[in-house]
């Protein structure tokens, strides 16, 4: 594997790992219409994206 391939390979893995980490930390975004990017239960102030 050449340097360019290794760099791209590492970058893709790092991005994927970041995405997984962020989702686990902040929750999955949902399309309920609220600007919160987290799902209910992890969003203390809006308690369930659309205020429920």
């Amino acid at each position, binding site marked *: *594997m*050449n340097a*360019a*391939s290794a760099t*791209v*390979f590492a970058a*893709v*893995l790092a*991005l*994927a*790992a970041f*995405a*997984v980490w*962020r*989702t686990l930390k902040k*929750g*999955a*975004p*949902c*399309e*309920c*219409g*609220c*600007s919160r*990017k987290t*799902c*209910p*239960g992890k969003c203390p*102030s*809006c*308690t*369930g*994206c*659309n*205020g*429920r």
Partner: protein
Amino acid sequence: MSIKIALAGNPNSGKTTLFNALTGSDQYVGNWPGVTVEKKDGILQGRKDVVIQDLPGIYSLSPYSLEEKVSRRFLVEENPDAIINIVDGTNIERNLYLSTQLAELGIPMVMAVNMMDVVRKNGDKIDFARIAKALNCEVVGISAVKNEGGRDAAMKAVELAEKGAARKSEVPHVFSGSVEHAIAHIEESIQGKVRKSAIRWYAIKIFERDREIISDLGIGVGDLKHIEEHIRDCERELDDDAESIITSQRYEFIKNLMDKSLTKSEKRRNKATLSDRIDKIVTNRILALPIFILSLCAMWWIAVAEGGPGTVLTDWANDGFLGDGWHLPFTTHEVDGRDYGTACEDYAKAEATIKAWEAGEKTASVEDEETGETAEEWQVDEAAYNAAKAVEEPDPSAYGVWVPGIGALIGGALEKMGVNDTVASLVNDGAWGGVSTVLGFVPVIFVVFLFLSFLEDCGYMARVAFIMDRLFRKFGLSGKSFIPMIVGKGCGVPAVMAARTIENKRDQRMTIILATFIPCGAKTVIIAMFAAVFFREMWYVAPLMDVIGIAIIVLGGIALKKSSAFAGDPAPFVMELPAYHMPTLSGIWHHTWNRVKAYMLKAGMIIFPACVFLWFIMNYDFHFNLVGADGIDRSMLATMGGWIAWFFAPLGFGTWQGAAASVSAEIAKEQATATLGLVAAGFDGATTASNITALFGTFSDYPKLAAMSFMLFNLFIPPCMVAIAVTFREMGSKAWGWFAVGFQLLVGYVLAMSVYQIGMFCAGGSFGVWTAVAILADIAAAWFVLRPARKEAR
């Protein structure tokens, strides 16, 4: 120390809109009652020491609903420094019922009369000074939507809070002599037990025999007996029960106040409002449901019909913006009498001719890019072969200003960098392939959410709940259950959460089980993809999925209600229908953009890593040897998919690809489309659509039926894993959680199997074991719906 100001008012009176305007927050504003269930805090812009608290909408301070309990507890126990009582100016009489109760709390209050723009437009006049005097509060006219007057109301509330004004003055007396006499005696009995300024509110609640308040105050038996005597005297004198006396005298007080303070325009007094006239049609007993279905059809027609804006934009996004590239509009021109499209078609035909001749075949053919079906077939000879060899690949930049697509840019960059084929495939086919399949449907998602936001903001969606209540009630369900289902059109997670507002535990559980049958935003992508690939000429398949969702809810509800676990009368459903109004562009944009943004974010945060993982297990075997496209059947994904493929065989997609796509959809529903794009990439078609068509061709002799079955299965089985987790949490027990998931899986499976097996038989296929199983399953389902209710259920 910070100043706490509570925003209180009737449902759908504009509290959250005012809250957002005052605090710069971005809370969800829905044009139907009951959007806010728990209070939310925000800092008043420009005043860091002032906290604004948005309370759930309530009609009174009685402890009957969850919203009332939350608001009441906060106002009584947390004792805010001031209240902004937001009142709908177009419906002031009904809103004042709560205002009279709030005034009794002895907390400084500013009444913000909202929708003054509409009041003025109607030609009505409200005497603020008279209301202010009667209720001992400040009154300010505002328009929350137009951001007028809200700040003034807040600053007035801050001023009152700083002075502690109302706590020192008299609270309004709205009752007749004997009631006031009894209240005065109760006040004497509870002195020292409650906050001095709120003593009247407590006394009235005790007069109403509010159990919660009586038990909270721990009033002694002797005092209680004494109080009870006074209440009974009143009841005897006025020939009514205590609670009704308070209610009717409140309304009498409000009516007298309104007679003197509200001047309705002559025109309005004699004429039905525009909302009344529209409602006569859209909530009409016969027309209501067809109009609702027609509005769904209109939405889907715009989103997925051939040649419609949704399809045109989706094609551009898939092939142009995210794919190879696109010509800037108005810059295209012909070269040698041919446009770029024709030149590409000629080149594809030339390539097919060369390939066929070199393979020794006598005919060549080209496929339709979208459907994957043979579009044209012709004879090949040496002359045609030589002519084909002379055809050059058209250069897009020769036909106009060419903007390369993101896919082409990524591919070009990787090539330039000298990245090897495996890593290039990881990026092009794995990461970008999956993500771009999902992103390609942003235009459809946008159209659907734009339409829903419009219907919601103009006030129609609230009518849908009303229409559905009429339908649901016939089957023992409540319209209250339909509010979560409207929310579920956006996302199943808040839909499950929204069922919290249903007090009756049995109805709440049933609503949780049924709410996610309405296809959510993520499932919209599955519908859009299958509509685009397999049912391009049949746009009505898309709205049909919504109608099937509603039908499952009704039939599932009937079946469940007949079991003892869910039996009982439907919960009462009281709902105020907001007046129709033209939504603001910013409001619609705000709702739509938030949803689309979340969809795109999900593509990056969930779909992207999932596709990278799928690419790995699709390209490597269990010994971590690279198998590539040729050895894909030996890959980890193919092996694991093969273990469970049998489960999907009766549904028409019993292959490892079908299994992988269905199972991966539990990560997020739109992952099904990304996985299909990924596993079909090996077909080397011109587009993802033609690859998927070819893939389903390998599943069954009836690919369209298999596609329909796949779509139904993935739409109507349990929702994504986040929604399943929330279902378990809201159900409160693992047993109920598993029941919900089992029920949903059974419904989705039976539906998909029935459509595939019976459809196949009707299309001329043989009658097999699974056809018989499908028919028996349908008979069993019909029996569950039509059977007589159990004794307890009756």
